[in-house]
């Protein structure tokens, strides 16, 4: 079969034209930075601001980007949710301007940070706080109380049915079925697992002996990928129990966790409260607000299973524009507006006034090298 060159060309042209016409119109919500010009009177900045790290912060980061861009439309902001480890590594290698991380820098990483940031060191701000709920799916049970030792027993596999004496002891008067418990844990390495196991190790150390780890340490139970995977697995089974960000729990049952003599349900306020009343990690720089969360709190206003995710950056940047951009961004993130935006978009817990004042000192200190 012979075909004229023109017909062949026509096919190609049509294909090209199709893709070009799509390219030509541009994104309707992007109007070259002037459309959503800021109403704030602050000095207008420009340049790039690049962050990378925790994927847990992705949804909040999206909200912060939206808010920050409306103040500073000239700054080209991007955040790559590569994971906390990757974020810290890229930050220390100088590849990104700041990192989002579910864990503070380790001592080893701090020595590397000295090369990256010079003598003035790093800032670490606990800007993203999220309560981790113990979620379950069990027909007919709408209210569930669990002490730390019971939670640890369920997740290490020593409590296997819902009518186990230890669970009934926590829930006097409730009728619990004899359904088998299927504990669901994260199959991927995650800061959520690290914080959850840290809680178990500190609050129920005699039952939970595997320590605080990012990768689920024991065999058995069901493994799921990511918070959405845990929610899907818990929701998809019967007699399942797992741990996930409180904001994502949806229709699932949420257990009240034993704190002191009472049982506390996760809430943004209780999560922020426990972080505010926790001690800083000792031996750190002035602006390094790494926190050791008080998992064994006995206050009924506090909920101890929280994920704390940091923003990590340099106190001193080589470049003035960079320093200004980081400073402006962090100032926005810790502001009430910024925290509210994150709470609306990601269900996080806004930081307390004390934490804000503390963080403000770090933000004020961000400068460019002379």
């Amino acid at each position, binding site marked *: 079969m012979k075909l004229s060159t023109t017909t062949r060309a026509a096919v190609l042209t049509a294909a090209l034209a199709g893709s070009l016409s799509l390219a030509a119109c541009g*994104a309707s919500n992007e109007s070259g930075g002037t459309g959503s010009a800021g109403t704030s009177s602050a000095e207008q900045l420009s340049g790039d601001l690049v962050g990378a790290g925790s994927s847990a912060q*992705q949804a909040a980061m999206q909200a912060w980007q*939206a808010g920050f861009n409306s103040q500073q439309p000239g700054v080209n902001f991007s955040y790559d949710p590569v994971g906390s480890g990757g974020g810290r590594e890229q930050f220390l290698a100088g590849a990104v301007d700041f990192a989002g991380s579910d864990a503070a820098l380790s001592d080893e990483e701090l020595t590397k940070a000295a090369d990256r940031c010079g003598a003035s060191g790093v800032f670490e701000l606990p800007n993203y706080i999220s309560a981790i709920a113990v979620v379950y799916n069990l027909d007919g049970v709408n209210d569930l109380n669990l002490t730390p030792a019971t939670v640890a027993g369920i997740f290490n596999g020593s409590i296997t049915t819902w009518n186990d004496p230890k669970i009934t002891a926590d829930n006097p008067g409730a009728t619990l079925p004899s359904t088998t418990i299927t504990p669901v844990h994260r199959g991927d390495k995650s800061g959520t697992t690290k914080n959850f196991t840290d809680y178990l190790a500190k609050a129920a150390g005699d039952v939970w002996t595997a320590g605080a780890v990012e990768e689920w340490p024991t065999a058995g139970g069901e493994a799921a990928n990511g*918070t959405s995977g845990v929610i899907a697995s818990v929701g998809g089974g019967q007699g399942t129990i797992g741990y996930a960000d409180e904001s*994502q729990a949806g229709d699932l049952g949420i257990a009240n966790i034993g704190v002191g003599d009472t049982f506390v349900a996760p809430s943004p306020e209780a999560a922020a409260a426990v972080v505010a009343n926790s001690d800083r990690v000792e031996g750190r720089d002035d602006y390094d607000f790494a926190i050791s969360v008080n998992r064994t709190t006995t206050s009924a206003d506090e909920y101890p299973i929280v994920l704390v995710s940091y923003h990590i950056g340099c106190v001193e940047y080589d470049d003035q524009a960079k320093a200004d951009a980081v400073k402006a961004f962090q100032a926005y993130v810790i502001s009430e507006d910024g925290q509210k935006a994150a709470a609306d978009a990601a269900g996080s817990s806004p930081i307390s006034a004390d934490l804000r004042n503390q963080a403000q000192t770090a933000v004020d200190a961000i400068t460019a090298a002379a």
Partner: protein
Amino acid sequence: MTATRSAPPETRGLVEQSRRLPRLAPLGLFGLGALAGVAVSALTGFSVVLAVVYAVVLGTLAVYVASRSVEGTRKALDRLVTCVVTTAFAVAMVPLVSLVWTVLSRGLRRLDGEFFTSSMLGVVGEGGGAYHAILGTLIITGLTAVISVPIGLLTAIYVVEYGTGRLKKAITFLVDVMTGIPSIVAGLFAFALFAIFFGPGVRLGIMGAIALSVLMIPVVVRSSEEVLKLVPNELREAAYALGVPKWRTIIKVVIPTAIAGLATGVTLAVARVIGETAPLLITVGIINGTNLDPFDGRMATLPVFAYYQLTQPGFPPEFAIDRAWTAALILIILVMALNVVARLISRFFAPKTGR
């Protein structure tokens, strides 16, 4: 036949052996068997799955037994195989239909104008779109194809037409090795390669294209090789006999003969990489705004976009999850379009076959 009764019995046997079931009989028999199957399942406690299983098994049996008694064992076997093959096809369609149905029913919710014209810059919660990701995927996949198809095709031609001795063996072997590269390793490789020259923070569209090429080239080579081998040697020999040089034989005879298969192979290869997520996570990253320059900075791509929208949906999660399914639907539509192009190519460029 004007045969008389005195015709020799052999002839008669040969002619009359073709006693056949009437045309629609197998269908009717199958239906009867199937009805019996449904009845059996109804007696033993009704469930749709069991009913279908019983129906198919009994239907097939009915056809086989009837055919065996009327038409003999060979015919019966043929009918049995027909039933089995058709059933297998139907069985395979079940998950495929379920999958398409799932994607369609969830993806159509956000398949609106805004999805195609808007990016995610400054979008929180509802709204937003994948304009940036659609273009990013088109650009990166296009680059990948531009890199992979010539290399893959030439390699296949080398292996089938030119290659001799040790180099051919080595290349065949190495292409096999390449098919075994896990996608995430391809991403790590591309990343390490660029990190040497541009430092560890580098994220470029072209890095993604190279990572995907590492995955795509072996698929192109393997499928093209398979297809080129099927071109009958008589065609090549005829061309040589007419004094046509080898390279012109390849371009004018071998490739056009094989073009339909080549196009299918390339389309499959593109399809293989267009939905690849893991390497792009590492090499291209994600941004919320539009970036159309594959040599400058991060780009958004549909699979990565869908992955993050699904796994990090924010609060409330419904909006992001809807966006993710729609992104998946668009990926499928894109590949569908590619398929049409491949079909057009094979229709326009293939020589008419003898039959």
